[in-house]
């Protein structure tokens, strides 16, 4: 039974929603040009950038998979957060790839690739970025809806209504105000989200106690709950795959890169990376602690009820736990915080993937440059269509296995090849369109192949692992390694006289 009070908590949530929607809609008058809509006129400053990037990279889906990782793997489940924080810090300080990328003046990464590899590679890059990105964000809406239904104690039949309401609220201000609305609402959402996250964490630590949390991890996972290298379900391959994914995500993840490209100059973009880096530790560790607390405090009866659906048992543990311990008032703050987190994530994802569709997939087909008004209209229609896709994919796709595994595997569809292309584009003069084509095809083949096999062969992921030794981690590592090798080999195979 949830402690959610529709009067008190509902009012807090309602107030948050009204303020956010008003703020998002108020800035629409400043949008007169596609560049305003997609990169906010490149006027974003440091603190707004940090708030926006942090809010974007933390959605309900993030909270759910990081809590699931804490529940399943203990503290070791927070390893990807540490790896991404290191990647953000090092790349922010050195400017590796991001400096030449921002200096080039592009709006998307494929636009840069056209300069070195030609129009076809720009288009193909756009296709894999959108394919990987949309598959990735396809589950966001459903997971967000599930969390809100579980925490507020609503009947599950209201899931579709919750998903629709979430989508409509985000879509309205994103379609109207584009990146400007996203930045302004992200700022408000960062504050609401952070206050909620911190308040709930302090309450959990106060109620459960640090020693109970540590003892639960020790009792359930042994030393592996603290060290990913010796956890039986994680190990070296997991850490390597995560390191590759996190470095590639820092370099090429569309929503992250959008902040770099919207920054008012290159050094501001780098400072946004540096300033946000430690947030990625918090992003995994804080909900991870919630997940561990759920493991420690849920009664055997509650755990038994969750286990009745093995696909969602570990995913739903945290929201079920929170629904029972949070008092009235704090429950409203949590729901507002999670709504804030989710809306900022969904809006950013919609606008940044719309940018790639407009700029790089449709762009090459435009015979002549369309007017700014037409460009804005097309962008708004693309955002709306992404919303429709999110709704139906979330409704019909059935998630199997860990949520984080799904997200990193779909992300790898483009992360592997795009990171290889970006590095080669920035630092290797011999890189050409032969190598780029091969890297894109090979990079996408392994993760897509894994997802198809998982859905089509009897036994799914278990059969793939036990019979063929093919795991998600191996699919990711192979994808990165072979995309790199393909880039080098095929670039060298191309005769020098035929330039890209």
């Amino acid at each position, binding site marked *: 039974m949830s402690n959610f009070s529709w009067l008190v908590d509902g009012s807090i949530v309602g107030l948050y929603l009204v303020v956010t929607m008003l703020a998002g809609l108020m*800035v629409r008058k*400043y949008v*007169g*040009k596609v*560049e*305003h809509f997609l990169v*906010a*006129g490149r*006027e*974003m*400053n*440091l*603190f*707004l*950038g*940090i*708030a926006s990037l942090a809010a974007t990279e933390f959605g309900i889906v993030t909270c759910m998979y990081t809590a699931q990782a804490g529940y399943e793997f203990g*503290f070791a489940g927070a390893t990807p957060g540490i790896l991404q924080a290191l990647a953000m810090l090092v790349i922010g300080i050195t400017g590796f790839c991001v400096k*030449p*990328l921002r*200096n*080039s*003046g*592009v709006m998307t990464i494929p*636009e*840069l690739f*056209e*300069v*070195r590899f030609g129009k076809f590679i720009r288009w193909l890059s756009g296709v894999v970025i959108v394919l990987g990105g949309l598959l990735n964000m396809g589950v966001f809406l459903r997971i967000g809806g599930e969390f809100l239904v579980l925490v507020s104690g609503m009947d599950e039949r209201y899931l579709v209504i919750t998903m629709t309401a979430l989508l409509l609220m985000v879509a309205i201000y994103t379609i109207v105000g584009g990146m*400007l609305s996203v*930045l*302004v609402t992200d*700022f408000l959402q*960062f*504050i609401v989200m*952070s*206050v909620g*996250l*911190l308040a709930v*964490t*302090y309450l959990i630590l106060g109620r459960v106690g*640090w020693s109970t949390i*540590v003892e639960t991890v*020790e009792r359930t996972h042994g*030393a592996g709950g*603290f*060290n990913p290298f010796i956890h039986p379900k994680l190990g070296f391959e997991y850490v390597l795959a995560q390191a590759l994914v996190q470095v590639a995500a820092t370099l090429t993840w569309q929503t992250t890169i959008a902040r770099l490209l919207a920054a008012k100059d290159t050094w501001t973009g780098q400072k946004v990376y540096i300033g946000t880096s*430690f*947030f990625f*530790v*918090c992003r995994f*560790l*804080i909900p991870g*602690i919630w997940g561990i607390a759920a493991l420690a405090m849920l009664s055997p009866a509650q755990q038994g009820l969750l286990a009745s659906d093995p696909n969602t048992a570990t995913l739903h543990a945290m929201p079920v736990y929170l629904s029972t311990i949070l008092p009235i008032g704090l429950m409203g703050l949590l729901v507002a915080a999670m709504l804030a987190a989710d809306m900022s994530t969904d809006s950013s994802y919609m606008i940044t993937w719309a940018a790639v569709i407009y700029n790089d997939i449709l762009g090459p087909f435009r015979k002549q440059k369309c007017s*700014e008004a037409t460009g804005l209209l097309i962008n708004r229609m693309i955002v709306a269509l992404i919303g429709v896709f999110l709704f139906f994919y979330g409704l019909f796709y059935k998630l199997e296995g860990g949520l984080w595994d799904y997200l990193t595997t779909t992300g790898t569809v483009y992360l592997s090849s795009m990171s290889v292309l970006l590095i080669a*584009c*920035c*630092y*290797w*003069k011999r890189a050409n369109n032969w190598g780029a084509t091969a890297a894109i095809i090979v990079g996408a083949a392994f993760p897509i192949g894994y997802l198809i096999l998982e859905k089509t062969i009897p036994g799914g992921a278990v059969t793939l692992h036990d019979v063929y030794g093919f795991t998600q981690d191996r699919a990711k590592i192979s994808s990165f390694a072979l995309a790199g090798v393909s880039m080098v080999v095929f670039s060298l195979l191309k005769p020098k006289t035929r330039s890209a």
Partner: protein
Amino acid sequence: MELYRWFWGLLTIAALVWYSTITIYIAYRGVFDIQHLLKTLSRGEFNPDAPETPVKDPV
């Protein structure tokens, strides 16, 4: 095991302290960034008819 406990304990404290501090700091400074952003855009410094910035080769 004791080392692990210390590591995760210190990391958790660092995360909570850092996150609490940065939330307050960004809530304060971010307002000025938004003011600056909207002021620049409302001054009409961006000409809708201006040509797109040419893309430069990074190498």
